[in-house]
């Protein structure tokens, strides 16, 4: 080991650099390389196979003239904001409850986490059944005597996205809860003791001390949730197929359908370039804040 004498300067960096080679290669070759490739081909009229027949901005003009794309963006915005806020809140609340040294913690945690293990193809189907007015929840409530009860989120274009949200939260909050729990477990017991000695109530300790200390975990969770939201596809396909009409279409589905159903790679690449651009616009300022200036260690 090169650590007999205290490593300093270039040596300290050397080991870390060697260890980080896989990351650097992945970042540069796969993510940067493939993104550039995608952007380049978004200016072509590639159909089934990538080909360099340049068409300038045609694909983008068609993209922004497409009703389906505009609906998709709007849906993603509604779904995204709600899913983000709700899964963070519910996930944290559940983690806090589980962190109370309760009995059967393992059982509760497994129950909350199990949806995460099941394939979307079928969970979409199950929720489609449960939310189906003919034989799902609406039917049950009506059978209990509430004849006029109406609950058909998947068949009403105005609220279909909330029907998807119900299933999405069911599937995803377990993982958020787990991440939060891991974060809470990383908080020192002494901090709780100190807070109690000072007479700070529990909820205030969470808000003022614990949550700020968990900032890194929150960022991780935020990235995991948002990247999942942006890639939202399987659930929509399984639950609504984008319907009724175009009412639950999302951008990732637009990209895939264009690439593989319409056999219009160029259009799919143009749509994914727009998605990429949106992500970059959000991430770069965050990265600047996160890394700019302050130096750790």
């Amino acid at each position: 080991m090169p650590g007999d004498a205290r490593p300093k300067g270039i040596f300290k960096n050397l080991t870390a650099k060697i260890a980080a080679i896989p990351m650097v290669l992945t970042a540069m070759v796969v993510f940067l390389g493939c993104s550039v490739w995608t952007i380049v081909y978004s200016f072509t009229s590639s159909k089934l196979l990538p080909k360099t027949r340049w068409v300038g901005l045609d694909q983008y003009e068609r993209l922004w003239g497409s009703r389906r794309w505009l609906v998709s963006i709007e849906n993603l915005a509604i779904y995204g904001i709600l899913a983000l806020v709700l899964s963070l809140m519910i996930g944290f609340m559940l983690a806090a409850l589980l962190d109370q040294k309760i009995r059967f913690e393992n059982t509760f945690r497994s129950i909350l986490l199990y949806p995460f293990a099941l394939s979307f193809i079928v969970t979409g189907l199950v929720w489609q059944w449960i939310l189906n007015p003919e034989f799902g929840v609406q039917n049950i409530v009506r059978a209990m005597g509430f004849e006029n009860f109406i609950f058909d989120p998947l068949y009403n274009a105005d609220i279909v996205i909330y029907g998807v949200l119900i299933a999405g939260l069911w599937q995803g909050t377990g993982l958020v809860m787990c991440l939060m729990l891991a974060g809470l477990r990383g908080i020192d017991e002494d901090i709780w003791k100190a807070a109690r000695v000072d007479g700070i109530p529990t909820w205030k300790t969470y808000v003022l001390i614990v949550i700020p200390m968990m900032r890194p975990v929150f960022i991780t969770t935020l990235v995991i949730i948002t990247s999942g939201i942006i890639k939202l596809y399987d659930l929509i396909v399984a639950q609504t197929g984008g319907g009724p009409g175009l009412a639950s279409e999302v951008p990732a589905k637009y990209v895939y359908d264009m690439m593989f159903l319409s056999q219009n790679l160029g259009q799919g690449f143009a749509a994914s370039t727009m998605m990429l651009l949106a992500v970059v616009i959000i991430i770069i300022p965050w990265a600047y804040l996160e890394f700019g200036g302050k130096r750790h260690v």
Partner: protein
Amino acid sequence: MSDSTNPMARRDHTHDSVEPDGPRPRHRLSGRNIMIYGTLIMISLYYLLPLYVMVVTSLKGMPEIRLGSIFAPPVDITFEPWVKAWSGACTGLNCDGLSRGFWNSVQILVPSTLLSIAIASVNGYALANWRFRGADVFFTILIIGAFIPYQVMIYPIVILLREMGLYGSLSGLVLVHTVFGMPILTLLFRNYFTSVPVELFKAARVDGAGFWRIYLSIMLPMSLPIFVVAMILQVTGIWNDFLFGVIYTRPENYPMTVQLNNIVNSVQGVKEYNVNMAATLLTGAVPLLVYFVSGKLFVRGIAAGAVKG
């Protein structure tokens, strides 16, 4: 933000003064406990409802499913769908159900999970504790990569693998899983290691420990909960992966999800909902088992937290 707005907190506070040395408060049958367990049980019921529907459906025959309510318990319990899903459902010519791909899935899962977690945890550690110039740029690119829809990358990666001579092989698939797991996992580890007290790290440096020794003897043992989370993420993701498994390998290596897809996703013909549900539950069994077993490590995470102080 006044205390009086939260009677719950108040009560806590007064109770605590009775036993100031204990960990966090723990009372049996107090109002607080009723609230905690009540909430958890209510939420658990909501989470279990779809599972109930799936289990019940998987135990019914097709005529009963066509006619009955999805919530009704089965009249004639049959395990036929489970048997069929595991060993009888057809994938084209091969009528041996999910069992066909099970070992393939294990062969893909184990190396992919271990390799991706090993690489990403070292990445995260290097980023958190041994920062070097330019690291942030690579890391930012990596994070942006987490947001790119997988399907967009399919064709360029085919070309990459072909040039590396790995296309169609198991190692190619393991590599793909490692690459796509890297952004989230690296972020996970980096952020967790960042919150480990710097003093520990500094003390180890003073003792003359190097990059690998600090990683193995200090960081690893302290980070069990986050390794559990990473494992949950990877096991679930890789086990349920269909797209990469089917695109980057050959039929003899196809994972179990290919059979699941073929059972569930048939374009034409009658949908056998009971077999679909049984197949889904069977496929989900491995990640579920991992979740349950890993629970022990979570509990040990509490002990680790206690040691830290």
